[in-house]
């Protein structure tokens, strides 16, 4: 259903099904975020996408990625309150993942370069945003990794922090990770997804002799769509 709503006093249209953050960005406004991706369900983990939303008489601070676009709401960006809370969120994130370069850069863009909180692990780069997990589950449908533990021992890892055997080496998680802390490399026809300890031999195209995708991934795809495996012997260019 199409609805009308306001951003900074100007009227725009959107649908109730979309995320408020997506709608705000569509109209050219900037809001920082680390755990949002339009392809997967929002999770509200990083708390960076804060805005103020006025609904009738009530005005409140909320994360926008997991807020719906509702008829008649008014959205305010970068208010004094938003700026103050966002600064705190950046400081907390910097303490969680002090080694995350991209996080430090984004924080610096918003004027935050230091944190008063004491980091637990100076080397940590993962902000526990869960994007890798959501992409792997919802888009790739491999469900190879997950959160483990909880509270201060919560971490994102492959089962038992050993080889993620369900991982097809597609690299989707590597690509969406906001802090680049998963890592992938290809060497001697082996593709490795570093953080999940997964090494997969590549299939060599029978025509052009180039490695094009992990063999295991092609096996899985053939199984999923119930096609003859031989159809995947050649790379997409030579098919």
């Amino acid at each position, binding site marked *: 259903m199409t609805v009308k709503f306001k951003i900074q006093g100007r009227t725009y249209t959107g649908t109730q099904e979309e995320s408020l953050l997506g709608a705000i960005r569509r109209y050219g406004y900037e809001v920082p975020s680390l755990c949002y991706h339009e392809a997967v369900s929002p999770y509200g983990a990083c708390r960076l996408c804060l805005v103020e939303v006025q609904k009738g008489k009530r005005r409140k601070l909320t994360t926008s990625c997991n807020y719906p676009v509702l008829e008649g709401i008014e959205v305010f960006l970068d208010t004094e309150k938003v700026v103050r809370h966002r600064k705190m969120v950046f400081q907390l994130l910097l303490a969680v993942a002090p080694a995350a370069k991209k996080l430090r850069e984004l924080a610096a863009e918003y004027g935050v370069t230091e944190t008063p909180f004491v980091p637990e692990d100076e080397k940590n780069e993962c902000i526990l945003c869960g994007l890798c997990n959501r992409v792997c589950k919802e888009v790739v449908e491999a469900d190879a990794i997950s959160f*483990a533990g909880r509270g201060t021992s919560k971490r994102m890892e492959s089962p038992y922090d050993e080889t993620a055997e369900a991982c097809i080496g597609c690299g989707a998680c590597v690509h969406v990770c906001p802090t680049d802390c998963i890592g992938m490399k290809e060497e001697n026809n082996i593709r490795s997804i570093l953080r999940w300890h997964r090494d997969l031999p590549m299939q060599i195209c029978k025509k052009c002799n180039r490695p094009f995708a992990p063999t295991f991934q092609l096996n899985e795809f053939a199984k999923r769509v119930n096609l003859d495996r031989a159809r995947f012997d050649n790379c997409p260019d030579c098919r």
Partner: protein
Amino acid sequence: MDAKKLNTILDKYRREPSALLAILQDIQDEENYLPKDTIRQVAGELGVPLARIYALSTFFSSFSLEPRGKHICTVCMGTACHVRGAPRLVEHIEREFDVPAGQTTPDMQLTLETVNCVGACALGPLVILDGEYHGNMNPAKLDRVFRPLKKKE
């Protein structure tokens, strides 16, 4: 866990993926921990991704991924219990049974664990042995609580 035992548990829940938690609980009760091989089999049998079971089994503190002792002793180290001498109790048990906190005696008799506040602060310091709460503990009282265990040794 042997295949027959596991099958009995799985059948009990008609191999329903939605019964996963109950299944894990039963395995934990039988084995006192969740053996890795068994978890792999459960994943295969129910068609549930291993990653999801792993997430569950590390989330709930009632599950353990490591083998645990026949008896489980938990000492509360929450703030209230801490100031009333919980660290002394831990040291006492560590010495008496020669097992560091967080580990199990080599004969698999006793696992010693610590937790943060079990919500009975008024009774602190608190020690839980095999599910039974013992409040206002001191080393002398502890010895009495542990006497049945010591005898068997």
